[in-house]
Structure formats: structure tokens, C-alpha cells
């Protein structure tokens, strides 16, 4: 039976929420410690960076799922022929935005990981602490890049929840899909506030 594409698409949908979406939420919430001062953030960051088996947690909860989602996502994004001009319905615009944010996020996350976790891994930095982020975000271009990055990630996740619910056949009726839109809009707003507040705490 030739259902490899089906299974790969379903896996792509699942991994976007579990674990990547959950990790994103957790990441933004931990970042939010920055609003309580340097020490609070450093404690939280230190705790996360020193979880037992942290390298395995990172590989199986972050790197592998994220890489699969990113690379298969690029394939999906580039096999669509976007047509928001003549068919400018809300869902189609969100469909296009999901693809643009996805491609942008591959670049943003690659850069973000290189600048933070990778520097710690090669020993160029002792720890991903408050100081490191403060140095990065001191540059106004970097701050703008990070703001766009956080908003894109949160949008991609929120809209991804909506399509996850459809892809797995949870929301079927028009009404349930409409309500899911309101719910995911709420997720977008709440996580955006958390993420942006944390970014400005470093400035």
C-alpha cells in the first residue's frame, strides 16, 4: 500500500504541535522570566540547560522533530501555487501566510540556534544567559529580526493548531472550524504578548 505520503503528512502535522508547539510555548514562558530581572532569567535558563539527559531531550524533543517539520515543510511550501490575489478569502490568506512564515522561520531558527545554543556547544559562550541575549538584542536590527521571528513562530503555531484540528478530523463542521479560528486567534495574541514582553525585557 502506497500511503507513505499520507503518513508523512500526518507526522508533519503531529510534530508541529507535539512536541514543537509545546516546546515553543515552554520556551516563550521561560523567556518571560526576563521581565523579573537578570537573576530570575539566569536561574530559569540554568535550570533548563541542566536538566538531566538534556542532550537527549534536545535531540528527541527539539532537533529531530524540528528538522523533520522544517525540511518536509519546505517541500510542502514549495509545491503549492499560491493564489491570494484572485482568491483572497481569509483561509487562503492564512494558508499563504503559513507558508511564508514557515520558510522565514527556517532561516530565523537556524540563525537563532547558531547564535545561542551552538555558541555554547562549541565553547564560545559559557551559557545562554541574560547577558548573551542583551548583547544580541542591543542591535536594533537584531531586535526587529527577533520580534518578527517571535511573531512568525507564534502565528505559525496558532494557525498550525487550526489545521491540525482539521487534518486529524477533530473540527469538521463549519461552525467548529470557525470557533477553532477564534481559539487560535486567542493563542496567537496571548503567546505574542508573552514573547514580545520577554524580548523587550532584554533591551
Amino acid at each position, binding site marked *: 500500500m502506497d*500511503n507513505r505520503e*499520507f503518513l508523512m503528512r500526518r507526522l508533519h502535522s503531529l510534530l508541529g504541535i507535539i512536541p514543537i508547539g509545546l516546546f515553543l510555548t515552554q520556551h516563550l514562558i521561560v523567556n518571560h522570566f526576563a521581565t523579573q530581572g537578570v537573576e530570575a532569567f539566569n536561574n530559569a535558563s540554568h535550570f533548563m540547560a541542566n536538566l538531566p539527559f538534556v542532550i537527549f531531550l534536545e535531540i528527541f524533543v527539539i532537533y529531530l522533530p524540528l528538522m523533520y517539520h522544517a525540511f518536509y515543510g519546505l517541500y510542502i511550501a514549495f*509545491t503549492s501555487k499560491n493564489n491570494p490575489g484572485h482568491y483572497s*478569502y481569509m483561509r487562503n490568506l492564512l494558508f499563504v501566510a503559513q507558508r511564508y512564515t514557515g520558510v522565514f522561520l527556517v532561516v530565523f531558527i537556524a540563525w537563532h540556534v547558531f547564535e545561542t545554543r551552538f555558541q555554547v556547544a562549541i565553547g564560545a559562550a559559557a551559557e545562554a544567559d541574560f547577558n548573551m541575549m542583551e548583547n544580541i538584542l542591543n542591535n536594533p536590527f537584531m531586535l526587529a529580526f527577533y520580534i518578527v521571528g517571535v511573531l512568525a513562530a507564534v502565528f505559525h503555531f496558532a494557525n498550525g493548531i487550526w*489545521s491540525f484540528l*482539521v487534518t486529524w*478530523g477533530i473540527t469538521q463542521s463549519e461552525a467548529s*472550524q470557525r470557533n477553532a479560528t477564534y481559539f487560535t486567534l486567542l493563542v496567537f495574541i496571548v503567546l505574542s504578548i508573552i514573547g514580545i514582553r520577554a524580548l523587550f525585557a532584554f533591551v
Partner: protein
Amino acid sequence: MGEAAKTVIFEIERRNSTDEDSYWEKFELPYVMNMNVISALMEIRRNPVNMEGKKTTPVNWDMNCLEEVCGACSMIINGKARQSCTALVDQLEQPIRLQPMKTFPVVRDLVIDRSRMFDSLKKVKAWVPIDGTHDLGEGPRMPERKRQWAYELSKCMTCGVCLEACPNVNDKSDFIGAAPLSQVRLMNAHPTGAMNRDARLNAIMGEGGLASCGNSQNCVESCPKGIPLTTSIAALNRDTTVQMFRNFFGSDRMVD
């Protein structure tokens, strides 16, 4: 009298055969009350003279029923795919731009070849098999309310508008599009058709099937018959989720 006669301007994307490059040709024709795109094309056929006054070949297009039930006359009118028989000139912005639905192979001018849709219907087994070695008698009865609901799905005329509007149906992907998927839901809902529902579900779990849907929902916005295509897709998503687990963990049971 004395007033300039009202005219209608058409811009038509034409080509002589599938492999040739397209070109635009403009036509100006007298306005007739309540005219539609097809009656305008008929007028161009009667008098094939373009706006520069040059005699040209008549524009080719496909049509059959002229009442939006056959799906043959679908084309892109002012950017959106729809049937030309129900496209009233009074409701269209001018100049009226006509293009073939290039998601399909263009035969000539506005004529397209929708064979791929019929091939897809075969691929997903969108029929109710009733053949036996002897008279199988009547099938199970369908509840009236279910029949009324299923009737809406049966309005599909394979016109191809949902495929044209879909960003995921293109030359880079082999996605079969919304129409044949919705037919799977219709056939699976039929009491006799349901006896083979697993075969259809497994068919749409194959290459270019259900999973290629990206939920842009252009199909349901564009469907001239108002078929709840996205609800069909979501319902099939649930059915295939169950089928997927059944295939993997289930027993040898095939049908309910």
C-alpha cells in the same frame, strides 16, 4: 436614436493547440439585454472579427447544458473560475477577461481536458458496486434525512472549479483535489456503498490523495453548487485517521 450603441468588450486568452503559446485577443460586440458569456461567445462565433476590425478564427469553448448542471463550460472569468453559462454580463466588470482553466491541459482557446478528474473518480472507486453472480435484491434502506443530506454532495458536476481554485492542485503536485474526495464521502455514506468504504479510504490515503490538502478552503468558497467540500475533507480526515490505526493495529476485519 443618436446615442452610441452600447457595447461589451471581451479580452480572451487564446491558443491554437495545447503546446502553443497563448495570446490575447480583444472583441467588441453589441450589448444585448441579459446576455451571458456564452451568448457573447456565440456572437463572436457568428461574426469572428476582433477589435482591430480584422477577421479572426472563432473562439473555441466547451458547453452543454447551459443551466449549470453539466460543468462543461467552466473557465476563468475576470480571474475567478466559474461556469460561463451563469456568468451574466450585467454583473461583470468590463472588459471581461476570459481564460482557460490552465490547471488542466488546454485543448484550444477556452476548451480544456478534464480527463484527470474522471481518472481520479476511478482511482478512488467513486461508485457503488452492485454486481453479483445472482440477483442480490434490494440494498439496505437509506433514511430520508440522510438522503436529503447526501443529495447535496451528489450535486457535484465534475466542473473542475475547485481544482482550479486550489493552490495545491498544480503541475508540481499530483493532488486529486476536492471534488473526487467529496465523492468518496458520498459513496461511503450510501448504505450499499459503505460495504466497500475501507477500499475507498485506502485509495485516498495513497499518493496525491487526501493528505495533500492544505486547507486553503478555496474549494468551498468557489464551488458553484455550494457543496460543503471542506466539511467532506475534514470528515474524511477523521475516517482515514481511524482507518490508519485500523490498518496498523487492527484485526483482519475490513467492513463494519
